[in-house]
């Protein structure tokens, strides 16, 4: 296909370009010092152990270098002193739909979630800036004994469970950004599923950023007790701002014996957001953890969901779709740490680079000691739409011993001119043909997403492909 025809990439960027007046009762100002930490702790009325925890984390954050020896140099453009680390509307998390402020409801409207679907969604947890604004746990879920609340609430109301697992999967010093999150976290979800409970409806949270220079540092902790099952979904979109915004979340999952956790993310931050997220799970014996991850927005995303396969026969999976449009860098991947016999892991990653977009896969597979019967399969496929697009693949696989098998495969291709020609002579426009091809490329992964997400995803891809051919 001649590249000139593809030169005029015009992506609909108006979707996220909306904002409302900011009314923040609490604002920690810009910059980060020990005083900021004290301010956050005081405003949120948190216990003293959290204060110590946050101070310690700040010291670690300040002492750690940026990971620029392997990561994108774009990270150097983050000016930490210009970021606001805490903002809150001062609202208490609300329980019913009626309590949700009207302007937040309007936000949902613009996100394109149909009324019917909103009602359908079992537990809606929408994050507006740093505090959970709306938290509606479906009655049945509560009756099953499932705890679903903001992490700030949880650390006050359920310290006995919260403290036991908090920061255990991802220690503060794991990386510079997990340390930053540990220092200034606010918001995020806490879920505890009691033994044997299977949560029928997916639990859901929507996040939004609505203030310039405001960094969102949510902290999510999900514990699935023995034999339980839960699916959690998060989707995010953000208004477009003039200066860069930092989003740095930490998500910890614990799947105890025989438990199953699915964690679904559809990320569509606006093109000025640095999205630097640490996500990791521990899977105990016979447990299954599945990360389903779709990255469409942001300026730079660095996110490598991981599973530590700690118990025998544990299983970890990462299904990942990345769409890198003009000026975007989707640096995503997966980490699979095999730490017990007969553990299996599967990574399937598909990326699409459009215009000057760059998609990177970074993977880590580790089968360390004398384990038996461990298996890993990794597949990464990249699709390049224009001649200016870029894709990279950097897997790292360490295997020890004779009882294990690992395989990694990756390919890079483009949409074939024949395919497009065939569809065009059947009456489709070039743009439609393009969109169909791209959707076909990711189709088998999109099917892994819950129905409402796969519909939304398809729509997002259509939107991104619109006008990508001229």
């Amino acid at each position, binding site marked *: 296909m001649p*590249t000139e025809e593809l030169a005029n990439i015009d992506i609909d960027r108006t979707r996220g370009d909306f904002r409302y007046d900011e009314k923040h009762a609490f604002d920690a100002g810009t910059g980060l010092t020990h005083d900021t930490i004290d301010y956050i702790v005081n405003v949120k009325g948190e216990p003293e152990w959290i204060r110590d925890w946050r101070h310690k984390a700040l010291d670690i954050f300040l002492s750690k270098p940026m990971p620029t*020896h*392997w990561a994108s140099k774009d990270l150097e453009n983050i000016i930490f002193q210009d970021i606001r680390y805490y903002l809150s509307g001062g609202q208490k998390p609300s329980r019913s739909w009626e309590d949700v402020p009207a302007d937040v409801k309007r936000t949902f409207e613009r996100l394109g979630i149909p009324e019917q679907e909103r009602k359908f969604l079992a537990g809606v947890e929408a994050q507006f800036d740093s505090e959970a604004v709306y938290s509606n746990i479906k009655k049945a879920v509560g009756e099953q004994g499932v705890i679903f609340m903001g992490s700030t609430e949880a650390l006050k109301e359920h310290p006995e469970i919260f403290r036991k697992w908090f920061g255990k999967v991802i220690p503060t010093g794991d990386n510079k950004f997990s340390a930053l999150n540990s220092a200034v976290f606010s918001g995020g979800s806490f879920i505890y599923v009691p033994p044997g409970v299977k949560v029928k409806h997916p639990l859901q949270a929507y996040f939004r950023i609505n203030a310039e220079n405001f960094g969102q540092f949510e902290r999510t902790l999900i514990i699935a007790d023995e034999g339980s099952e839960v699916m959690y979904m998060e989707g995010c979109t953000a208004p477009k701002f003039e200066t860069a915004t930092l989003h740095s979340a930490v998500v910890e999952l614990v799947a105890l014996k025989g438990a199953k956790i699915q964690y679904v993310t559809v990320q569509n931050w606006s093109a000025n957001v640095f999205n630097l997220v640490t996500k990791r799970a521990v899977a105990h014996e016979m447990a299954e953890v599945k990360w389903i991850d779709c990255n469409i927005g942001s300026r730079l995303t660095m996110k490598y969901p991981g599973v530590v396969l700690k118990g025998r026969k544990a299983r970890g999976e990462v299904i990942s779709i990345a769409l890198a449009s003009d000026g975007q860098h989707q640096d995503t991947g997966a980490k699979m740490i095999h730490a017990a016999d007969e553990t299996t892991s599967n990574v399937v990653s598909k990326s699409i680079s459009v215009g000057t977009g760059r998609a990177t896969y970074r993977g880590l597979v580790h089968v360390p000691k*004398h384990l038996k019967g461990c298996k890993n399969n990794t597949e990464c496929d*990249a699709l*390049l*739409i*224009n*001649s*200016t*697009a*870029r*894709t*990279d*693949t*950097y*897997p*790292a*696989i*360490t*295997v*020890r*011993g*004779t*009882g*294990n*098998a*690992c*395989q*990694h*495969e*990756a*390919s*890079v*291709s*483009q949409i074939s001119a024949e395919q497009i020609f065939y569809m065009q002579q059947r009456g489709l426009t070039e743009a439609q043909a393009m969109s169909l091809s791209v959707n076909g490329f990711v189709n088998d992964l999109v099917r892994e997403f819950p129905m409402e997400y796969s519909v939304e995803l398809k729509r997002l891809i259509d939107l991104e492909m619109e006008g990508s051919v001229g």
Partner: protein
Amino acid sequence: MSTALLETEEMTETTVAPAPLLSAGPSAPGQEAAWSTFTSTPMPVRTDERWRFANVKDLDLGTYTQPLPIDEAAREELLGRSRGMAGTAGRMVFANDQLLAREQFSDSLSQLGVVWLPLEQAMLEFPELFQQYFMREEAILGGQKFAALHASQVRTGTFLHVPRGVEIDLPIEAFHWLHGRNGSCFPHTLIIAEERAKVTFVDYYESADSEAPGLACAVNDLWLGAGAQVTYVTAQNWSREALTFQINATIVGRDAHAKALFAQLGGRHVRCESVSHLRAPGGRSDMLAVTVADRAQEIDARTFQIHEAPHTASDLLYKNSLDDTARTIFSGLIRVDPGAHQTDAYQKVRNLLLSDEAEANSAPGLEIEANDVRCTHGATSGQIEEEELFYLMSRGISKKAAQKLIVHGFLQEAIDRLGQPAIEEKLAELVRAKFAIHG
């Protein structure tokens, strides 16, 4: 290097004790800049992505000296042990960076205008060619310090210039011996194949005592003009206690075809960096390696396939067999530069683990900046299938022998890609010899 090099060479005959390497300084005038680069470049650290997985603490150079002298008895012994292939066009033998012998078996070489000389002689006789090609490509895979060390210490090596249209049918060989304890050597191979030239070259790296500690730091550069065909093989069989480096650059011109194979058998800690620059349309580079790692060996291979021009191809196949507590590292990258359309690049590493303590690290990478390309890579790690063993054993073959057969078959796939039966047989013989010693 400078003209003083030859004189220095003679001087070493009378030198009593070679200097410790770290305080040696350049081996000849003209190498000062390289020496200062060497001393000012820090030792590798593990946080450097290019040294990821490597045991960088194992790279201490403090115990080694400059190359040791070779006496007459050693000379005779090593010449006798320099057994290559039956039919060759020529052979050079070096020990501790001294030329022991240069034999030309085919008169036609010089009649055809082929320049095949020790490096220091070529520098004097063909200064322009030398200037144009000697260490022109920087070490970009992490080994700058060791490339600088090599440049500051290199005394001799092979210089091979094949003029336009000349095809040499039989392979040319060079032996590089490391003799004595804690000495060092700096083998150098520079091959320049002009337009449509064709040549096959084999370097044998050997130690006189297979358990003596020593340092080897080799550089080999292959330059292929338009339509040239070069096959290059390193049969690395340094001492089991040697710390070794090898830095290779292959520059592939228009419609040229390079094939390089590294057979890694010896060494305690082996670092091999290989870069293919596909510089003009139609170029192709086959990058092959077979590794037989056992005991506590660490074999660290880094590769880079750089597609700088459209319509180029590269195909990499690295096969590692690992026994005992051996560690292998494969870290490779395919890069397709903007505009290098119609690139066809392939990269595959396969690890066969034979013991529970062996560790295989693979990091196959891609960096693609053009869209009309076909790039794939794959990495697998596994072990011998019980069924395969059972099948062979049911035919009356002992378990040990069956294992060896399977490993041979596994490695053979890469060796066969050379398409040169004489070299393939020689390599198979070396692999067999390693198995025989080890049991």
